[in-house]
């Protein structure tokens, strides 16, 4: 028994706090063996489970993110389409309104034109009748004048 540092023991013949012996290498071997056993029984299986779960969580998270992105894309698509449809409807309405307006204008113009024509015709008619009447009146008055003259002459 070699006591390398026999500081704390004087009364006991052997032993002591700093009593190095074969306990040291055997304890070291024991710990190395324990390392291998724990690696097989603890670190590898638990590590596998934990890393599998971490992988699962990561892929699920990625999956969910992708789906979220897809949903957002679809939503934007939908919004764009809605916008488009709205614009189309607006265009249709405007076109219809324009058409109505032009039709209205055309009809109005036509009606005005026909009315004008009628008035024009009536005026021409009136004019013709008046001139005819004028002529007849002139003729009549001339005949009457002639008659008067003849009578007077005859008297």
């Amino acid at each position, binding site marked *: *028994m070699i006591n390398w540092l026999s500081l*704390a*023991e*004087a*009364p*006991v013949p052997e*032993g*002591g*706090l*700093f*009593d*190095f*012996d*074969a*306990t*040291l*290498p*055997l*304890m*070291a071997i*024991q*710990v*190395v063996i*324990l*390392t*291998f*056993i*724990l*690696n097989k*029984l*603890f*670190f590898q*299986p*638990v*590590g596998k*489970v*934990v890393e*599998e*779960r971490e992988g*699962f969580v990561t892929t699920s998270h990625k999956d969910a993110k992708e789906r979220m992105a897809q949903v957002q894309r679809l939503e934007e698509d939908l919004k764009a389409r809605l916008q488009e449809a709205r614009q189309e409807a607006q265009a249709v309405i405007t076109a219809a309104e324009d058409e109505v307006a032009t039709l209205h204008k055309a009809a109005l113009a036509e009606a005005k034109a026909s009315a004008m024509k009628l008035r024009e015709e009536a005026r021409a008619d009136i004019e013709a009748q008046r001139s005819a009447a004028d002529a007849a009146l002139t003729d009549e008055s001339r005949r009457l004048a002639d008659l008067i003259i003849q009578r007077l002459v005859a008297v």
Partner: protein
Amino acid sequence: MLLQTLLPLAEALPASDAEPMVEETHGLEIGQHFYWHLGQLDLHGQIFLSSWILIGALLTIVVVGTRRMGRKPGGLQNLLEFLWDYIRNLSRDQIGEAAYRDWMPFIGTLFLFIFFCNWGGALVPWRLVRLPSGELGAPTGDINTTVALALLVSLAYFYAGLSRKGLRYFEYYVEPTPIMLPFKIVEDFTKPLSLSFRLFGNIMADELTVSVLVLLLPLFVPLPMMFLGLFTSAIQALIFATLAAYYIGEAVHEEHA
């Protein structure tokens, strides 16, 4: 020297009680060992006995906890996964992303073994078992165990550095300047020395304090010291494992990584 002054006092006190109920005053058994003889070799039997019991407890927890593991952890699996995660973070922080996987089982075994030894030494009522000589206690309260662990750490970091960097490992001794060479060489000796003596001193001193207090005032008074002992025990396990990981990390560290 303090011990020698304490010993007679401790032995004298319960005797002066003169209570015949106490069948045998146990006294403080410092530096007494329960020797086993293996051929020419002497072994500290009490260290092996208690370490086998504690390793058995550790392995039982591990085996029971890993029997039915699922994606959704429950019961012991939770505890084991927590420990695993804790050890992984510890070794990853100290060793680095590149090499921590190789050394995680070693660091984890050091942590778990020391933690179980420390807490087992404090929590298991070893006194119920009488040995012919010496007494059962924390295996880490014996200098042989702590030196064995510290030397394993030394071997581990040398092996880690040499296997990862080859002879370039010795560049570490002259970095950043060759002036560091003697200090780095001295460090190779002080590292295992400080590792082993820190652990041994803390555990042994804690056991000693508690047993002295128990001898002097058996009821309630030693309790705060026992709680403090549990605290330091856990801290010592953490310190040992962290330093071991740090030394290995230092050895495998690449300057340009």
